[in-house]
């Protein structure tokens, strides 16, 4: 009867309605930012005056025609570009290295048995489970203790440390679904281990590797807490920049910046999902 009740129209209505509300809860706050980003009102964002692209333009260096527009309240495009550049450099470097490390580790755990494997598996997911703040502090302690000056490099190292675990999870899933006899067949036909990896294993796990890379990239780009602890003075990333902006007081330009960042993240996520569903 529950089945029937679950399938009955009333329940269907209830669930659909709930789904609507649920998605609404998830997206309306973000939608609000989106709407506000076009509001010309620079004094009170919540009160709509007129539609404008100006806030977006200020990010890219354009001037505004608004009379109430005060240039002192926006960040310079050069500064914005600089932090974006930093973020991208960090994200690309960290995700590349962590993809290599994560894939290697995934291969090791998928193809070999060894003492303490269970324990090692727990160790692998530790960076994902531990609260960011603890990770950030640990890294800070290391860098200061080892005498490193905090810079973009320290951020890259810090990101790589926890991103590898994410890549590991994604690539492991892909490896689990792979037919192991293919690698045996390759060896049987005369291919050494490296050749087998290049010609057989890698093509098979490529969607996982790419997916892991994209995931790492986005997480690195978005990271706030860990970066907060290990960034040096001259090495600001986009999220830290936004954080500083938010601390200084809420201004309309943040809306535009936020929307752009959202769109970019969503685009990357969509690409990742598309690649994952292709399976090949």
């Amino acid at each position: 009867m529950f089945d029937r009740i679950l399938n009955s129209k009333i329940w269907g209505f209830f669930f659909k309605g709930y789904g609507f509300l649920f998605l609404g809860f998830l997206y309306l706050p973000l939608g609000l930012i989106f709407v506000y980003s076009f509001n010309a009102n620079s004094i009170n964002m919540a009160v709509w005056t007129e539609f404008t692209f100006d806030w977006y333009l200020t990010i890219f260096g354009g001037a505004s025609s608004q009379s109430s527009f005060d240039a002192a309240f926006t960040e310079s495009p050069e500064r914005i570009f600089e932090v974006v550049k930093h973020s991208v450099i960090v994200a690309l470097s960290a995700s590349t290295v962590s993809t290599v490390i994560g894939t290697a580790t995934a291969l090791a755990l998928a193809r070999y048995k060894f003492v303490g494997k269970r324990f090692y598996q727990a160790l692998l997911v530790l960076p994902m489970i531990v609260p960011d703040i603890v990770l950030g502090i640990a890294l800070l302690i290391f860098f200061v203790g080892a005498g490193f000056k905090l810079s973009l490099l320290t951020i890259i190292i810090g990101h790589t440390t926890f991103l590898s675990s994410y890549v590991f999870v994604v690539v492991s899933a892909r490896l689990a679904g792979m037919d192991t006899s293919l690698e045996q067949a390759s060896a049987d036909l005369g291919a050494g281990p490296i050749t087998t990896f290049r010609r057989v294993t890698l093509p098979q796990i490529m969607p996982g590797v790419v997916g892991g890379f994209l995931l790492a990239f986005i997480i690195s780009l978005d990271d706030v807490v860990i970066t907060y602890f290990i960034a040096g003075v001259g090495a600001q990333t986009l999220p830290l920049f936004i954080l500083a902006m938010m601390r200084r007081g809420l201004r309309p330009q943040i809306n535009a910046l936020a929307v752009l960042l959202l769109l970019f993240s969503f685009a990357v996520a969509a690409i990742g999902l598309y690649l994952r569903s292709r399976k090949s």
Partner: protein
Amino acid sequence: MAISDTVLKRKRRTLIMLLAPFTIMLSVFFLIPLGIMMVYSFLEPGLYGGVEWNWYPYNYGRIIGWPLNDYEEFEPIYLKIFLNSVQIALMTVIGTFLLCYPAAFWVSRMKGAKKNLALFLITLPFFANLLVRIYAWLLLLRPTGFFNTVLQSAGLIIEPLDLLFTNFSVIIGMVYILTPFMFLPIYANVEKLDYSMVRASQDLGANPLQTFRRVILPLTAPGIIGGSVIVFIPALGNFIVPSFLGGSKVQMTGNLIERSFLQSRDWPFGAALALLIMASVVVLVVFQLSRQAKAEARGVS
């Protein structure tokens, strides 16, 4: 062709080569600093930052509220903050659970492309920047924010409500951020639900409420517990959300840690606090792993 390695020796070498990067990285950048942190937590803070190498149990003492000297009173303020953090984290868990549990069933009932779309839409906000998500709630809750503006213009209130800088605003923010973490484990569990058990329950005479309580809830319990652990941990150690949505009124352990390390330079104290959080995390993780191992041993998926 005189190679003296056996298959086993070669395998071992490859294994070590593959595992070395991650092991070294994790040990150097995380495990060893964690150890240092443990040591620091028992050291005396230096006058100008740094540490003095004396045995100093008062870091932990301060957390409990032990007075440092005769001029202080027993002041368990830090303990209160920690307990408040636990409370907020628990409320976050409850909030995300109430939100995600019905949602999991909603998605599970769907079929095909619609289902994939729903899953995509639910996980997508996870990729939105943390700050942007917090910022959205700032816009909603502050005195000149969305809710207050709407309520005022509708004439329902005159003075703006104090929605921000309360435990409630912090909890709402955390629920918003951590929803995907609760959703996925619960959903995975609900998806695997064998409806023949539900039918069997009805066949044996149970009404819907009983079936829910006696069959569906227990069967989905693993996902609920798993999701709760994954939500509780980041909620407990969070400092960004209370920093913005809680202001100085709502303090969580994370804020204390941040201040200790970056502002007051009292590393030992911060270390002690961080270890307190780590201890809670370890307890929870061990609990979760042992539960999983037991379930595996029993043959339950």
